[in-house]
C-alpha cells in the first residue's frame, strides 16, 4: 500500500537549505584574515560568506573557528573586532552576507500569487549581549525586510519567519544565475541605514533608513566577538532541524562559485601542454572540478611560483594568463627563453606557495 505524504507542502527532507556552507565547514581562501574593514564587498575566509564594508574605521579579524554548538557543526565563522569605531558617520556599514542565485530560490514563488513564507534559522553567540539585524534583500526588485535578534555569550538558535511577498504580482526572483537575494547580517551601521523605523512586518520597497534601526555596533569595543554557524533558509513557516550535509557535497556547491588549489613543490598544475610557436610560450590547460556559475576570473598568486617542466628542466614563468569558460581553462605560460618548439611539457609548482584560484562568485 502506498501511503500519501501528509506534509507535501513542507520543505523537502534533503536539499531544503537554500544557504550554502551554512555549517561554515569550507574555507578555500583562508582560515583567517586580519586587518579587514576597508571599503569593499569581498570574500575572505569561509566560502560563500562575504563582507560588505563602507566607510568605517573599525577593523576586524575574520576566521573559520573550530567552535560550534555540539551536534550542529564543529566550525563557525568568527568576527573579532580589533579597532573600534565609535564615531559612526551616516553612510557607514558592515554587512556579513551570502548572495544567492535566483534559480536556487524559485521554490519560494516570491513576488507573485502563491508566494510562500520563508524561515531563517541560525546559531549565534557573542562576547556580550548585542542586538543585530537579519535582512532579506531582494536584489532583483529592490525590496527588503529586516528582523532584529539578540546575542548572548552562549550559543542560541534563532528562528525567524518572514512573510510571503506577493507584492502586486510583479516582483519575482529572476530564474537565472544572477544574484536575486542577499541574506544580510547587519553588524554596524550609520544613520543612513538606522535613521528610520525598522521594516519588520512585510517586504517593502527599499528605504535605506529602515534597514537596520536598533542594531548595536560590533566595532564598539575591541573585546567584541561575533560567532555564527548552522545557518539555514527554507520554505515554509517552520524552522526544521539544521540540515547536515557531507563535506563533499558542500565543497562541490562552493566550487560552483570559487575553487582554489595550492600546489606542493614539484606537483603538476596542468594535465599537459605543448610549447607553442616560440621558445618562450606554452599553452596548457585544466578543467574545473564542477561546472561553474559563469566563466570565472582566474589568478595565480605569483607567476614566479610556476614553472614549465620540459626535458628534465624547469624554467620559471614570467607571465601566466588564463582563458576560462564555465568548464575549463587554458593557461598561457610565458618564460624568458629556452623552450623547444613542439616539445611536450607541463606546468608545475616550483615551491610550496603556488596557488591558482578561479572566481565566479556573485
Amino acid at each position, binding site marked *: 500500500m502506498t501511503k500519501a505524504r501528509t506534509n507535501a507542502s513542507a520543505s523537502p527532507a534533503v536539499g531544503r537549505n537554500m544557504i550554502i556552507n551554512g555549517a561554515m565547514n569550507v574555507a578555500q581562501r583562508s582560515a583567517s584574515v586580519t586587518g579587514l574593514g576597508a571599503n569593499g564587498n569581498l570574500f575572505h575566509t569561509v566560502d560563500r560568506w562575504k563582507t560588505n564594508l563602507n566607510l568605517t574605521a573599525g577593523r576586524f579579524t575574520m576566521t573559520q573557528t573550530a567552535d560550534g554548538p555540539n551536534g550542529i557543526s564543529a566550525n563557525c565563522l568568527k568576527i573579532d573586532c580589533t579597532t573600534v569605531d565609535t564615531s559612526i558617520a551616516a553612510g557607514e556599514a558592515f554587512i556579513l552576507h551570502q548572495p544567492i542565485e535566483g534559480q536556487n530560490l524559485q521554490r519560494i514563488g516570491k513576488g507573485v500569487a502563491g508566494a510562500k513564507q520563508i524561515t531563517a534559522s541560525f546559531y549565534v553567540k557573542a562576547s556580550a549581549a548585542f542586538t543585530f539585524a537579519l535582512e532579506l534583500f531582494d536584489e532583483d526588485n529592490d525590496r527588503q525586510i529586516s528582523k532584529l535578534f539578540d546575542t548572548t555569550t552562549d550559543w542560541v538558535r534563532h528562528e525567524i519567519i518572514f512573510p510571503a511577498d506577493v507584492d502586486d504580482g510583479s516582483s519575482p526572483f529572476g530564474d537565472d544565475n544572477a544574484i536575486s537575494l542577499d541574506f544580510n547580517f547587519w553588524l554596524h551601521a550609520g544613520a543612513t541605514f538606522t535613521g528610520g523605523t525598522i521594516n519588520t512586518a512585510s517586504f517593502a520597497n527599499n528605504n535605506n533608513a529602515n534597514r537596520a534601526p536598533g542594531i548595536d555596533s560590533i566595532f564598539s569595543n575591541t573585546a567584541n566577538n561575533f560567532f555564527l554557524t548552522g545557518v539555514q533558509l527554507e520554505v515554509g513557516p517552520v524552522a526544521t532541524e539544521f540540515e547536515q550535509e557531507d563535506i563533499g557535497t558542500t565543497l562541490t556547491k562552493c566550487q560552483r562559485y570559487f575553487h582554489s588549489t595550492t600546489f606542493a613543490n614539484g606537483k603538476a598544475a596542468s594535465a599537459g601542454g605543448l610549447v607553442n610557436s616560440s621558445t618562450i610560450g606554452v599553452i596548457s590547460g585544466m578543467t574545473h572540478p564542477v561546472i561553474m556559475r559563469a566563466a570565472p576570473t582566474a589568478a595565480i598568486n605569483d607567476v614566479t611560483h610556476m614553472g614549465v617542466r620540459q626535458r628534465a628542466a624547469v624554467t620559471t614563468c614570467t607571465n601566466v594568463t588564463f582563458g576560462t*569558460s564555465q568548464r575549463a581553462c587554458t593557461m*598561457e605560460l610565458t618564460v624568458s627563453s629556452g623552450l623547444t618548439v613542439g616539445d611536450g611539457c607541463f606546468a608545475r609548482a616550483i615551491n610550496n606557495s603556488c596557488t591558482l584560484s578561479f*572566481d*565566479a562568485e556573485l
Partner: protein
Amino acid sequence: MNITMTISDAKYIAMDNINNTVQATIDGQTISVPLDPDNRHYAEILRQVADGTITIEDAD
C-alpha cells in the same frame, strides 16, 4: 551600497587573434577576466569603460 572595484592596466589577451580575456589589476591583484557579462569582474570593467574611468588596451 555600491562598492567600486579599483581597476588598472586592463589589456585584452587574444588567442588565435580573437580576444578572449582581459588581463587587469583589480584591487591590487593581477587577474585574467573572461569576456562573460555574468562574471562580476567583467561586468564592472564594462561599467567603468562605459563611464570613462578606464580603457582597455588592445591585445599584442
